[in-house]
């Protein structure tokens, strides 16, 4: 009887700890979101979206940072997506069981979680030192390097989900392989492919480390890809580390905007992905 009681006790204890750890994990999400709303929501106004970043201790907004982030994210995704999609297509369609695919998948998975600051150093070496100055273009290139592995991964996974008989039916009609892939496989996997791109956008839009020494930063409005460009994360970093209250408050607003954008993107991606896999 005592054995049974002690087993019951240890069961109760450990299972309780599992419940506690789940509560612990969710607790952080709630605490972080609540602080963001509390600290960032207060400073949020129309001015944040319409005015430039101010000098210390003056009112202003984040317009140049938001525009810079949008430009570099769009360009980075535009460069990285086709590359990633083609690579994923090769791995799932042409070279499904080849050694090359195995190696590329392995390397890609490592790039997927490689430190993003190293990507910044890489682009600094390859682009910034060659061009001789920091630029929005270099920032976009760094983001593109981060986009590629995300898109490769989802493209391959989604194309592998497309049933083989669909391809066989198309091939039986006499379609060449490339047409089968583009007109049948891509279409069947469309929702999944879009999910991958959205996830890549979400991943990239909060990236700070690779931008610090590629795009640098800019206190003024600039859409010139050949010049240093402001971005939301870089501005948040600069403003949050400053001793000025007005800057810190803008940093919180920027943080709220980024988090909101990233969470929206991931939720939309998930909804799309769920719909794609059920049909």
């Amino acid at each position: 009887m005592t054995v049974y009681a002690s087993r019951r006790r240890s069961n109760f204890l450990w299972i309780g700890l599992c419940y506690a750890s789940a509560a612990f994990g969710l607790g952080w999400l709630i605490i972080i979101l609540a602080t963001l709303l509390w600290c960032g929501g207060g400073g949020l106004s129309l001015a944040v979206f319409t005015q430039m970043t101010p000098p210390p201790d003056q009112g202003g907004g984040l317009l140049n940072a938001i525009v810079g982030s949008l430009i570099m994210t769009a360009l980075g995704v535009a460069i990285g997506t086709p590359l990633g999609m083609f690579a994923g297509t090769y791995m799932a369609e042409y070279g499904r069981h080849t050694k090359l695919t195995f190696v590329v998948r392995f390397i890609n998975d490592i790039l997927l979680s490689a430190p993003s600051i190293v990507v910044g150093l890489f682009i600094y070496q390859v682009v910034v030192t060659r061009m001789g100055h920091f630029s929005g273009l270099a920032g976009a290139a760094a983001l593109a390097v981060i986009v590629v592995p995300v898109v490769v991964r989802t493209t391959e996974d989604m194309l592998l989900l497309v049933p083989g008989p669909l391809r066989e039916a198309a091939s039986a009609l006499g379609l060449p392989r490339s047409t089968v892939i583009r007109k049948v496989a891509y279409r069947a996997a469309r929702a999944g492919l879009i999910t991958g791109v959205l996830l890549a956008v979400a991943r990239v839009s909060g990236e700070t480390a690779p931008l610090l020494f590629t795009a640098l930063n800019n206190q003024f409005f600039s859409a010139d890809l050949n010049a240093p460009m402001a971005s939301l994360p870089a501005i948040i970093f600069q403003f949050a580390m400053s001793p000025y209250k007005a800057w810190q408050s803008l940093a919180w607003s920027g943080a709220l905007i980024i988090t909101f954008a990233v969470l929206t993107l991931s939720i939309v991606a998930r909804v799309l992905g769920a719909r794609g896999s059920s049909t």
Partner: protein
Amino acid sequence: MAYKDAAARRARVLGAFKIRDGIFHGLTLAAALAVLIILGGVIISLIEGSLPAIRAFGFGFVYSSVWNPVTNQFGALAAIYGTLVTSAIAMLIAVPIGIGIGIFLTELCPEGLRRPIGIAVELLAGIPSIIYGIWGLFVFAPFLQQHIQPGLIAAFANVPILSSLFAGPPYGIGMLTAGFILAIMVLPFIAAISRDVFATVPAVLKEAGRGIGCTTWEAVRHIVVPYARVGVIGGVMLGLGRALGETMAVTFVIGNADAIPRSLLAPGTTISAAIANEFTEAVGDLYTSSLIELGLILFIITFFVLAIARFMLIRLERKAGKT
């Protein structure tokens, strides 16, 4: 005649098909190779960039703890130490809790809550690291400074080794705070992978365990965890890879002191934080080059950690495929 014509046309169309097919095939192959080229480019450019520092300091760079831009003497030990210690703190906290969440999600959670809670954990993983950083700096560090750290200092004041680990004034920012923030960041990765891995355990095994009278915990402890061990280790290594390379969250709260701190409460630095803080201010080739060599060291460490993680996960996939 018409017959011949049709055959010729047919050959022409097939030829065009073949060319287009070849182009598309070549394009996708080139893109796949580009992934390898990116990795090669990263390694080569980092080595190229760190050559001046390698020539100047040789292997001593790794075990010298001097970091002095004024005299142009650089060593990586303080940064490597900070990286390893903060990651160790993070894993110490995040591994048991992450596995606990994995067990909760697969074995204990009511069916209807499973998906929402799983998604919430994944959303936690999607929050950009700079958000953790700003939150850590303005909310978490002051909280630790006022409520937790004085308690730690007082509690361990008379314990021989721990008293020096938890010594000194409570700054708020420092190694311990950075480790905590990293733990919160890595937690969702470990939880999500543990959940996926535990989900591969065949229900028959668990049912057999319950059949011979196991409690829920005994079934988890002796059946689920041993079966999924390799995958969980893979997930833990993946989280470790993240923690080692994490930049922004750490940079905000580490305090940036270029020396090896005696106490966990003191400010220190990590490889990524040193690069993020000093790179744009680095004057002179040797300074820049030393920072790039730091990046190279970080990349090599994370590369091996992540490679081990992937090998473990691949082994698990094979096992799941066979049974």
